């Protein structure tokens, strides 16, 4: 057995370099972005470790290194060796550093012991200026109509390292400005700096080797094979990766200047992976999702389907007002009073609850309390698809573990549904509370007239559907983008999300009306905030023991599930 634990690093595993005079200790090797193989640590990684960002275009920490843009050029020196292969020392005992006569690209040059890297010399600045000048020679400079403006590396580095006026007297090369690469991506070929990030992403990450550089010389351009579409479920990540405005999302193109967007930290609710994302919204309208890096979940990516799944949030037909169809009441106080009365008067055993594994942990926590108080049996609705081996999970519910841990359903989600349906048909269950699920979906294979047999159908939902249509009482809720809460992903990652936009009309977070019902039924008001509810849930749940809302942070915490 080895005497050292793997987490201990020994001097042999690390080496010391200097970045702009500051000493920094870095591992000798780091995992390669795609294969994970140990490869020598590069200068750019050492600089990063020293807190120095080297400007770069083609380098991306999650992609294989290409080394084609030359923006990351730095100067460096290495310890000089004497004829005896021993380091030469200055009179003060410090090693003699031999300056390299040539610069090196920091993204692809391994560090060596004692190396000194200089990122802030006149020479380095001159090289950056030259690279910028070169990149801008044929660039159309159409920032005013470019979607990337405001988050463009070319703009940013032009400000830092560019010249105010161009010295170029010739005629610019023009290239096609709207190349349809696929159903979701457009290419503006003259903005492209040919960094090949998009090619590497789709080849090595999305594993759809669809893009290449065609034509020779001044007219070379990114392309898919003629007649083929760049169409996998991850194409929109290339629009994020593209350091300039060459690849744009057809969905977001010309819709909103990025500097107007408010960015809220949220999650995708499209499947059990729970990709971390930023919601870009303005004036209460969502304009885009972009992935937020979380190496324990989604790295820097998300799938196109999840990314584009936001339009429904602003739909005009959202449920906006509570409603008791029998009394005609349409405001929360009365509707909740009437609902509580219904539940209070229902005989024990005649109430059932169908929750949703798309609900938050906090909602499910309150829902379970309600079930316990009413003696109601419950289950949730399974949502299955095919996993793609990349990010998309076969579980299309974002919070199946939350539903299990709160006890609203069993390990196998939906196993109870046929029994509940039987009891409804047999007249044993006469009151049903449904949270966020349409029970008429054909894949559930429930009898078509099932809901009609109920005396009381209470439905909390967001959009109209046939279940809502048949409900006696409708309680309008919020998309997860309109509230705060937690989901637990398929691997047990407990993650928080925050509110991006306001819900329409009187719609309120489900914890609001669930709390209102519990208060009316038990005389005790449960906590209202997602924080407090999560902390109570964690306290009460062995798997979440010791966790707090605050401890989850922006990246979440993985628990044993």
């Amino acid at each position, binding site marked *: 057995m080895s005497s050292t634990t793997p987490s201990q690093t020994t001097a042999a595993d690390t080496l010391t370099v200097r970045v702009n005079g500051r000493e920094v200790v870095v591992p000798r090797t780091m995992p390669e972005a795609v294969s994970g193989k140990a490869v020598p640590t590069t200068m750019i990684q050492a600089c990063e470790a020293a807190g120095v960002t080297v400007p770069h275009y083609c380098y991306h920490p999650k992609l294989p290194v290409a080394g084609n843009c030359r923006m990351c050029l730095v100067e460096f020196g290495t310890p000089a060796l004497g004829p005896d292969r021993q380091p030469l020392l200055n009179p003060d005992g410090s090693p003699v550093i031999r300056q390299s006569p040539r610069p090196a690209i920091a993204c692809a040059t391994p560090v060596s012991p004692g190396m000194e890297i200089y990122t802030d010399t006149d020479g380095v600045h001159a090289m950056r200026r030259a690279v910028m000048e070169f990149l801008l020679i044929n660039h159309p400079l159409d920032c005013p109509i470019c979607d990337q403006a405001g988050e463009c590396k070319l703009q940013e580095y032009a400000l830092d390292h560019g010249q105010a006026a161009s010295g170029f007297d010739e005629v610019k090369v023009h290239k096609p400005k709207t190349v349809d690469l696929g159903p979701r991506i457009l290419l503006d070929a003259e903005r492209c700096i040919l960094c090949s990030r998009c090619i590497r992403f789709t080849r090595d990450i*999305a*594993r*759809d*080797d*669809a*893009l*290449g*550089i*065609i*034509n*020779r010389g001044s007219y070379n351009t990114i*392309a*898919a*094979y*003629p*007649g*083929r579409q760049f169409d*996998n479920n991850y194409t929109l990540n290339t629009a994020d990766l593209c350091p300039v405005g060459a690849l744009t999302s057809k969905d977001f193109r010309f819709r909103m200047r990025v500097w107007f967007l408010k960015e809220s930290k949220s999650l995708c609710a499209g499947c059990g992976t729970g990709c971390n994302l930023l919601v870009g919204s303005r004036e209460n309208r969502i304009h885009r999702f972009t992935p937020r890096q979380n190496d324990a979940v989604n790295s820097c990516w998300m799938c196109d389907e999840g990314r584009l799944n936001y339009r429904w949030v602003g739909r005009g037909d959202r449920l906006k007002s509570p409603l008791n169809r029998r009394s005609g009441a349409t405001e929360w106080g009365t509707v909740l009073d009437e609902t509580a009365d219904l539940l209070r008067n229902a005989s024990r055993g005649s109430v059932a609850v169908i929750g949703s594994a798309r609900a938050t942990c906090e909602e499910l926590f309150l829902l379970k309390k309600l079930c316990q108080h009413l003696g109601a049996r419950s289950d949730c609705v399974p949502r299955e698809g095919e996993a*793609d*081996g*990349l990010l998309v999970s076969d579980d299309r519910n974002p919070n199946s573990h939350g539903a299990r841990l709160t006890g609203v359903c069993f390990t196998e989600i939906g196993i109870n549904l046929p029994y509940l349906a039987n009891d409804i048909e047999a007249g044993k269950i006469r009151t049903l509370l449904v949270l966020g699920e349409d029970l008429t979906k054909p894949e559930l294979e429930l009898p078509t007239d099932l809901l009609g047999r109920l005396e009381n159908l209470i439905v909390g939902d967001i959009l109209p559907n046939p279940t809502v249509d048949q409900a006696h009482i409708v309680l309008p809720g919020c998309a997860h983008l309109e509230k705060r809460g937690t989901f637990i992903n398929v691997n047990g990652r407990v993650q928080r999300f925050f509110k991006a936009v306001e819900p329409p009309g009187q719609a309120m977070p489900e914890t609001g009306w669930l709390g209102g019902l519990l208060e009316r039924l038990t005389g005790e008001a449960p906590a209202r905030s997602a924080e407090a509810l999560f902390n109570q849930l964690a306290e009460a749940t062995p798997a979440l023991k010791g966790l707090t809302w605050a401890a989850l942070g922006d990246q979440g915490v993985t628990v044993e599930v």
Partner: protein
Amino acid sequence: MDQPPPVPGVELELPAALTAEIDEIVGRYPQKRSAAVMVLHALQDHLGYLTPDAMEWTAARLELQPIHIYELVTFYPMFRQRPVGNLHLKVCRTLSCALAGSHQLHAHLCRKLGLDPHGHGPQTTEDGRVTVEFVECLATCGTGPVVLANDVFHEHVTPGTADELLKQAGVSK
């Protein structure tokens, strides 16, 4: 998600000798993709130019995606995606030949054949018989102007000898 299988092979009618030649070429390299340029040359020699089918066939044969073959075909000027004339005249335009008069020679040939002396890339006469192309150094710089007529070198070519060449090829009287 696994790498999608290389394109389902397109059918290409090739003589057995050519298929055997291509097999031999592919066998020469430790990695199949290294054979791409040589396979494309073999196909172009046979077909006259590289059709989409030929590119897709090559991709499938070398277990690549067709975009990578397309990258090569659009990169190398010697690969062409359109047919050329029976007589393909490549006139050298690089320095030594230029000094020796290759630009005048190119202009002369173009005018004589009704082509644009300032046109880019290979230009073919309306009857499809002759193609004139201005190319970079043909590597016999001491004997310019140089013309490669199909696979035959002609050195010290003057407008007069060029006319002779056309006559011999039966293109003009």
